[in-house]
């Protein structure tokens, strides 16, 4: 795969060079290939993209962001900046996006130009349906938040932590480490979400990656004694609501910022980060056969820019861009500001380990 | 007018239910005639009617209306029911509850495709037919607000409104009480005569059939056993079944002495002695014969009377039921046979008496047993 990509990249560079040469020779700007557009590094990048996007007129964005808070403001912000491009978006969870996208690709009826989500990126990459792209904004991101092959780029981060009911869990009893969770006093009082890859599998994967298989397994075996409530259908947010309502004193592996948002309103709930804190990223990818490459790149640049990332921050997401802080209400659950060590579970690792972590869950916790 | 020939319609037998249907029914109905299909339930009369209506597709046979074929089993020709120009009244009346009285009656005109009726035409025709059945003043009522008799009239009005060639009545009176039934029967007859519409009437009630019909076909087990005027059917039954089904009768068995011609007389050596009988059909000597005699045709005489000789039997009156105009006597003929006699009540015969009974040869009808 990598070899192939390298070959492809060499080919692309050669093509670029050739294009530049012929372009100079002819003295006119000829149409770029899709591959060239996606990897255009010239200083006139924005102008080239704008010119191309004007001709395209529209782009289609498949995205897992909440519509009202994030997706629509981003689309609106983008269209305000580039009024000649009409952005139409489709919202679904990662799995649904992947499903739809794969169906479109196989039917040779691709609609999406840019795809964003937490799990979808890696599925598309694994299926060999992502194409490399470049954005100058990525230079400002840590290397772990972008793919060395250029196939994906992180847009936002998620931190996973304990959420607990402050009325049911006295401040001095709040578990401060994973080992504290093994205290018999929590037997039957812990809950976690078994539904998605970001539920139980992530919890397990995080420990396996951070501690190694043996230590993780020994710990999980003990944890299984605690008779954890397997919270079924319903989102992580729903689980936090249950904790607030006093159904369960503690929820493990929920999104760290959810309790904070409710705490602001006075709800009896709080977040506790455990070390190592699992961190994942939402990513974006460009599908093979993209119809509007100029527009797609324009939107990618926008999403990764300070403006775009600020819009994400406003929607209570953690921007992947280091120089855009999250909103105050949730800023103090960022591991590095608290001095807590985080463990970035890359999209590759998340995908690779999910199945085996799920098997561990099936074996120990059902 | 209507010709039905060798009509066969078999139903597959289902567990617990006998196989019904008709197995070769033929008859003709003359123009303006009231023709009745009479028989016990399951005899095939309703099946025949539904085949004529087109509601059932026969297996084989021919149905022709005014010499135009409606169904021909040989050529697989079927005229769909809606093209047959037939009106039908159902046992349950089948009045549509979602329509008014007027709309129920107007329906056949509204769905007509052969002729497009104007609004005025429809109003006129429906009013006329409703008036005839006496429902004009209810025309705007909901059909569900009608009484049973009124619904029956409405069903008739609906069947007649487009002046069909043929009117089919499927036990139309069976859901009415006795008094209303008689009244409606008369009215049916009146309307039928007034409109001169050829009618096939289906019933299991022989009195009704006798009262209303020009001709009657008696069905049994999917076959027509006799066709004739009510008088013929009553007076000259051609089979045990007909004799028993139509009114009450006495029946005895025996052997024929000497050959008898059709319409002639013959002597039967029977279980109650030699009897001179009328033979509607010719018979050969030695044939097994049964004969029937209606209770009201038998004369009763005191034992001491001089009445003797042919066609007289002796017995003891075991029971006498007084019915007003007549009395019914049960007579025990030497312990083996019973004779039912209907005679004037004032003849001085009472229970316990021994009597002589005379079976008039003209009224003692031979049938093949």
């Amino acid at each position: 795969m990598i070899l192939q990509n390298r070959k492809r990249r060499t080919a692309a560079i050669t093509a670029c060079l050739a294009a530049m040469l012929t372009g100079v020779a002819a003295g006119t700007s000829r149409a770029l290939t899709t591959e060239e557009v996606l990897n255009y590094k010239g200083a006139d990048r924005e102008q080239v993209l704008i010119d191309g996007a004007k001709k395209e007129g529209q782009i289609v964005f498949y995205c897992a962001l909440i519509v009202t808070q994030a997706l629509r403001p981003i689309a609106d912000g983008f269209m305000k900046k580039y009024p000649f491009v009409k952005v139409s978006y489709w919202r679904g969870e990662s799995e649904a996006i992947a499903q739809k996208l794969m169906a479109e690709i196989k039917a040779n009826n691709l609609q999406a130009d840019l795809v964003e989500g937490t799990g979808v990126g890696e599925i598309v990459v694994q299926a060999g349906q992502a194409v490399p792209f470049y954005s100058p904004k990525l230079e400002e991101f840590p290397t772990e938040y972008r793919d060395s092959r250029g196939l994906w780029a992180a847009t936002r981060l998620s931190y996973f932590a304990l959420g607990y009911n402050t009325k049911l869990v006295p401040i001095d009893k709040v578990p401060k480490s994973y080992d504290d969770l093994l205290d018999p006093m929590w037997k039957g009082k812990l809950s976690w979400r078994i539904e998605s890859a970001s539920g139980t599998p992530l919890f397990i994967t995080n420990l396996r990656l951070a501690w190694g298989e043996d230590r993780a397994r020994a710990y999980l075996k003990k944890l299984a004694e605690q008779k954890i409530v397997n919270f079924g259908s319903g989102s992580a947010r729903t689980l936090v609501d249950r904790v607030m309502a006093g159904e369960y004193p503690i929820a493990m592996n929920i999104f760290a910022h959810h309790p904070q948002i409710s705490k602001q309103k006075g709800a009896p709930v709080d977040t506790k980060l455990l070390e190592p804190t699992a961190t994942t990223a939402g990513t974006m990818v460009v599908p093979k056969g993209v119809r509007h490459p100029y527009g797609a790149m324009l939107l990618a640049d926008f999403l990764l820019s300070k403006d775009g990332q600020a819009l994400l921050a406003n929607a209570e997401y953690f921007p992947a861009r280091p120089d855009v802080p999250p909103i105050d209400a949730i800023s103090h659950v960022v591991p590095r500001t608290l001095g807590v060590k985080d463990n970035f579970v890359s999209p590759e690792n998340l995908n690779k380990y999910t199945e085996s972590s799920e098997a561990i869950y099936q074996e120990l916790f059902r | 007018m209507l010709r039905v020939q060798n009509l066969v319609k078999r139903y597959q037998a289902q567990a617990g239910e006998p196989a019904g249907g008709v197995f070769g029914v033929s008859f003709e109905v003359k123009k303006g005639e009231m023709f009745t299909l009479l028989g016990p339930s399951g005899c095939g009369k309703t099946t025949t009617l539904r085949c004529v209506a087109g509601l059932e597709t026969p297996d084989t046979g021919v149905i022709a209306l005014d010499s135009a074929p409606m169904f021909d089993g040989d050529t697989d020709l079927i005229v769909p029911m809606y093209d047959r120009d037939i009106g039908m009244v159902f046992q349950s009346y089948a009045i549509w509850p979602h329509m008014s009285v007027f709309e129920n009656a107007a329906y056949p005109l509204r769905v007509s495709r052969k002729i497009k009726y104007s609004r005025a035409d429809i109003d006129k025709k429906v009013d006329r037919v409703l008036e005839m059945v006496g429902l004009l003043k209810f025309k705007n009522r909901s059909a569900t607000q009608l009484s049973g008799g009124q619904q029956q009239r409405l069903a008739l009005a609906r069947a007649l409104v487009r002046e069909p060639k043929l009117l089919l009545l499927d036990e139309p009176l069976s859901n009415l009480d006795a008094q209303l039934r008689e009244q409606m029967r008369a009215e049916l007859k009146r309307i039928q005569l007034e409109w001169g519409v050829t009618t096939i009437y289906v019933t299991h009630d022989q009195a009704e059939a006798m009262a209303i019909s020009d001709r009657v076909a008696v069905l049994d087990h999917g076959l027509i056993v006799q066709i004739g005027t009510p008088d013929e059917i009553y007076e000259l039954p051609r089979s045990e079944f007909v004799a028993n089904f139509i009114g009450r009768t006495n029946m005895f068995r025996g052997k024929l002495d000497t050959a008898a011609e059709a319409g002639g007389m013959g002597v039967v050596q029977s279980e109650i002695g030699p009897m001179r009988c009328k033979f509607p059909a010719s018979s050969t000597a030695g044939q097994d014969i049964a004969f029937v005699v209606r209770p009201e045709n038998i004369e009763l005489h005191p034992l001491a009377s001089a009445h003797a000789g042919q066609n007289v039997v002796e017995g003891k009156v075991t029971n006498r039921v007084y019915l007003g105009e007549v009395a019914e006597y049960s007579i025990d003929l030497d312990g083996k046979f019973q004779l039912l006699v209907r005679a004037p009540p004032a003849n001085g015969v009472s229970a316990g008496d021994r009597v002589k009974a005379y079976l008039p040869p003209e009224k003692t009808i031979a049938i093949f047993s």
Partner: protein
Amino acid sequence: MSQIASSSPDIALAPPRRRGPRFSLPVIILSAILLVLILPPTIFLVKVSFYTTKPDGSFGDLTLKYYQQLFTGRFFFSSLINTTIYAIGSAFIAILLGTLQAIIVERTNTPGRKWVFLGAVISLGIPHVLYTVAWLLILGRSGPINSVIDHTFGHQAAINVYSMWGMTLIEGVGFVPLTFLLMSSVLRSTDASFEEASMMSGAKPTRTFWSITLRMGLPGVMALLLLVFIRAFESFEVPALVGLAGNINVLTTNIYQSSKGTGAMDYGQSGAYSVCLLLIVVGLLYWYNRLSRHAHQYQTITGKGYRPRVINLGKMRYFTAAALILMFMLVTGLPLVMLVFTSLQPFYEGVTPESFSRFTLENYRVLMGPGSFRDSIWNTLILGASTSTFVVPFTALCAWLAVRRKPGAWVLDQIATAPLVMPAIVMSVAFLYVFVNLPIPLYGTLLSVILASSVRFMPYGMRYAYAGVLQIHRELEDASSTSGARQGNTFLRIVLPLLAAAMISSWLFIFLLAVQAVSLPLLLVGPGTEIVAVTLFDLWQNGQVTELASMGITWVSLMIVVSACFHFVTRRYQVMAS
């Protein structure tokens, strides 16, 4: 007057027809439409169960492993037993309460009985997941009932809703509106004389109900049993939300749990399960169709004019009114009050004394803000109305042909009922593949969603219509035919109007379900076509329960308005049919 008969115009008859083929033309056309609509998802379902699914969603090797896993899994037997208890229990609750309501409403002079319809509409208007959530809030550890017990008796969390009875109760109660609507349309069109005859024979009202009313309404009751029972076997939301948290597995949640880890897009096991259910349904339907052989037993709409029987209860009617109110509270009132309460809270922390000082309209403000479901409401109403308007007459026609035993028409019922057992997600993926591959540009359009959701709700329409047609006395149609009407005319002018009561219930039912469906439209709708399902989904995934509740309340209010309009429009027919 013999000239009248002879004056009847002697116009050439339509050309006589030859004896028809074994399948009549309308049956062939309808079957073709049905097959085009339903075969693709069915084939997909079967394929999913027999082929491995690769991570990119394409099919891999032929395998029997999903069936093997299904039957040999660790939890198969316990799940099977749980499922059976759950299905029987919830079917029992739903049919008992629904039928009771229907009897009181249709057969007594209980004051305020007509309001039960409103109650049914309200419950159906609450999106199903929200309904479940509402019940969890009521019965939950911090819910009002447990609080009261805690305060009076000092038992903490005395009631544990995350249990078998909790699941069964919530599922059963959720189906009450369906059973009520179906039973009341059955009762409404049953001629009083049948019951009167029984009463006159000396049978007590209860006896009459058991041996006459229920017996005559058997097709309706059976249809209900079939629907509720199969739905319970197939239901996922309640077992997942309620059962899983109490470690009670039914077959669906068991499959869900054991297949979730094997790959994101692998529906193999749930496909295998659905295929098994499909076979069971085919068997049940075969048996159910035998009912129509004895159709005459159920023909309660006769040509003799029917009027439903209304029993004057005297003083007892206050008692039945109380029973209605009680049932209304159970089925609709409590969940609704709970949702209203929750929607007015900044966050939900149980029904505590403090919570009453925290009422706020903030959730509604957010909901009504720009870019919320305001924009998507029209698309959603179009989706619901089109789905119902297509399904109801279509299934009426299919059911009529099937009940009247038109050659080959039994096929229609079988095909139209197949979608009942298909999980929404499998169906949506199947339709995704169908539409995305079509040469005509249907993919992503609202029309494609309408088609898919028509298929999804076809079985419900079919059951309503089938039970309805069975009640129509054959002679009512024969009378039309002998009046000179063609089959089509008979259907339009006689059958449809007589079916009005059943069809109106069916329309409303399908409409209310179609507008709140989430997973099916979500995957099929294209970019730019906004529907409420997306908002609902977003709130479900990321919203707080208080926001979700406010959405539910707003939605229910809207549904009441829509249903009221609908009721107003169809009032004429309802009066006519009763």
